[in-house]
């Protein structure tokens, strides 16, 4: 369908302008194309000229002819009516000047767009990109390879252009979901989790859930959509905070130091020596650690310093998180076709960071061992979703989890350990961590600092789409990065499972609570049952 005619080249070398009477279809982010003759390589190796569809994305739209302001002086009078009265045809009255950025033609050899750098001549007809083309070209999903159906293209009617992103891509090169509170980041994350647990993917999925809002994913186990014809049935394991343990012996020396309450410079060598001596032990109790420290203190003449470590060690390890023998066993936690949700809603932020540090280090080590051909408990790739990513990888912060996350995000691709970072405060996430997430799903973000952080960290999202971010509504996202051939606006699909992170119905709860309290206060009490009734007859 021809929607306009090219009027002039744009300001940028890859831009052009076209005029259209269309007043609703052609919005920023919509895809159009024009035909141009392009020189391509022929099968024989030479060059041949072929007509190709050159796809472009609309980046700006402005009205170049419309109703004068005077027609809009009275909000109750339709300007079209005034136009008609004055003999202007209200049909075809408006003209829009659209700026479009050239993406290129789809090159089947490389399964991506190639920009031929041919700006269309004035008068060239501009067509609306067909749905089928967009479904095929926006992402690079091959047959027989798992893909995640995340929703549909925002500018087209619902379910008209389904968007599937290749699972192999975003689980290897990491994913970020960035959105302000209430714009649907947990919802989107759950959609991704659902897709990963479908028979096509059967992922080994770990979700760190600091707010306990992913429990509804348990329904995956029974819903038909997730059952495979070959008998596959996914398993969803929900670990409550009291079941989440770190075995003390799994801590590194630097973990130990950060767990203790600022040991002095005299205590540090004692602790280091004690930790070295206990390094072969599978189970270490706080008493064993202190006893070893004490023995070293006596031997080295630092008995007082060693004695002072006792309360520090007790204080550090008498927390629910640490245990001498129990831990999160990787073979229980991670298996293909299993989604493990670790609920951390009652765990302190410091302990959450420590847990991520210890657990992710273990997973990473096992994955490295496997890829290097060494003995490993994890002979399959792992994808972990980290809610509230800014807690675990804060910018300029000293979170225990930050170093291992930096390592995984920069090296994890080679070893089959992918991370999905979810956050509502991109400006508070470490820049390295954010920039290493090569697939981005950006939802509504209004804070200018957060928008700047995204601009800095995300390479392939155009300014035009980032400008749209503030105006997105719940459930709409800009999808960009390595998993897609060109960034686009997407409407996230409905969840198959129920959503477990609804906002509290505050006013309803207040009303209910008030009703209960007021009923209690006004309860009629019999005179003889009244407090102090037995003493009523006594003399004062």
């Amino acid at each position: 369908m021809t929607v306009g005619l090219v009027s002039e080249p744009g300001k940028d070398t890859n831009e052009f302008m076209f005029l259209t009477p269309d007043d609703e279809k052609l919005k920023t982010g919509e895809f159009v194309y024009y035909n141009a003759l392009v020189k391509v390589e022929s099968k024989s190796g030479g060059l041949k000229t072929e007509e190709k569809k050159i796809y472009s994305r609309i980046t700006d739209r402005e009205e170049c002819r419309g109703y004068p302001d005077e027609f809009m002086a009275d909000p109750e009078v339709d300007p079209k009516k005034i136009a008609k009265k004055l003999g202007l045809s209200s049909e075809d009255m408006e003209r829009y000047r659209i700026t479009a950025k050239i993406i290129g033609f789809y090159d089947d050899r490389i399964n991506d767009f190639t920009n031929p750098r041919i700006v269309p001549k004035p008068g060239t007809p501009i067509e609306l990109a067909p749905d089928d083309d967009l479904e095929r070209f926006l992402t690079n999903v091959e047959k027989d390879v798992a893909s995640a159906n995340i929703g549909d293209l925002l500018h087209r009617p619902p379910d008209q252009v389904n968007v599937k992103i290749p699972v192999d891509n975003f689980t290897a090169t990491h994913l970020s979901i960035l959105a302000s509170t209430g714009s649907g980041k947990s919802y989107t994350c759950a959609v991704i989790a659902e897709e990963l647990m479908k028979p096509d993917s059967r992922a080994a999925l770990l979700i760190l859930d600091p707010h306990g809002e992913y429990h509804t994913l348990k329904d995956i186990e029974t819903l038909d959509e997730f059952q495979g014809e070959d008998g596959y049935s996914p398993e969803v394991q929900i670990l409550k905070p009291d079941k989440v343990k770190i075995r003390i012996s799994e801590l590194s020396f630097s973990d130990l130091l950060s767990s203790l309450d600022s040991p002095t410079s005299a205590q540090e060598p004692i602790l280091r020596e004690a930790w070295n001596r206990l390094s072969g032990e599978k189970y270490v109790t706080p008493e064993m650690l202190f006893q070893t420290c004490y023995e070293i203190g006596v031997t080295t003449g630092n008995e007082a310093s060693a004695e002072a470590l006792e309360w520090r060690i007790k204080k550090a390890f008498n927390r629910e998180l640490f245990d001498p023998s129990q831990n999160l066993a990787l073979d229980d936690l991670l298996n293909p076709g299993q989604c493990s949700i670790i609920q951390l809603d009652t765990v302190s932020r410091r302990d959450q960071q420590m847990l991520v540090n210890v657990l992710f280090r273990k997973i990473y080590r096992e994955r490295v061992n496997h890829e290097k051909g060494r003995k490993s408990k994890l002979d399959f790739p792992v994808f972990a979703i980290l809610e509230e990513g800014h807690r675990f990888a804060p910018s300029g912060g000293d979170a225990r989890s930050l170093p291992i996350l930096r390592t995984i995000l920069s090296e994890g691709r080679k070893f089959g350990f992918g991370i999905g970072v979810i956050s509502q405060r991109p400006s508070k996430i470490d820049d390295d961590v954010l920039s290493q997430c090569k697939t981005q799903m950006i939802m509504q973000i209004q804070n200018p600092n957060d928008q700047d952080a995204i601009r800095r960290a995300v390479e392939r999202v155009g300014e035009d789409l980032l400008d749209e971010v503030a105006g997105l509504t719940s459930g709409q996202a800009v999808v960009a990065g390595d998993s897609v051939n060109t960034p686009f606006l997407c409407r996230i699909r409905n969840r198959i499972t129920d959503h477990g992170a609804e906002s509290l119905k505050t006013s309803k709860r207040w009303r209910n609570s008030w009703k209960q309290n007021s009923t209690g206060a006004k309860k009629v009490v019999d005179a003889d049952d009244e407090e102090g009734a037995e003493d009523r007859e006594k003399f004062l």
Partner: protein
Amino acid sequence: MEQQGEEQKKEAKMMKDKQREEIGKILGSESQIDYLCEIYRSTDVEDPPSPSDHRFGQFVSVTKEIDDTRVEFVGIIYDSKIVNPDQGRTVPSLSRPEDQELFHPSYIDERKTLAGIAMLGYIRSSEEGSDERKHCVPPWTLEVDDIVKKLSREEMVSFHEFEEGIKLGYYQNLLKIAGPLGKDLLSNIVSRLKEEKPEESKSLSLIEKNLEFNKMIEGV
């Protein structure tokens, strides 16, 4: 006899009314839609039009047969001019004004009231009986001495009535032809239509206010 006398009276009255409707004749034109009309005086017709019959903003029509079809050109008086040959005379007249009429009848005729008429559109009678009304530049031209009649208020309203409501399709043309008086003229038309069509007053008021505002702001 008595009855015959009454009929004669009636006929004479109708004749008078008809004459009253006729306000003048076309004298020339400036363009396809800008005509000059000479207003009848007492020397031209028995009952000349009163000043209110050719006032500023009076809708007028000229009826012509074009290709066997009756076409009524509709226009409006957008300006007027009084022509007086005595204006600027430096020598005294040898006769009294009342005697001049006797001695120089053709000279006296040169005293005229001329009206500028902007053609706004036409009404063409169709064979089916329904009239085709158009606000546009009429494709046909009037001729010298074509009779100009005044349009009644009802006819004026009817000229503006279309399926979708009241329309002033000649708006831009009239602004151009009437020049500095255009906004006053349009404002005058709109206010008359508003009185006749209260159901359209909201949108007509908006047009009127815009005209008033532009008229005021131009001089600032």
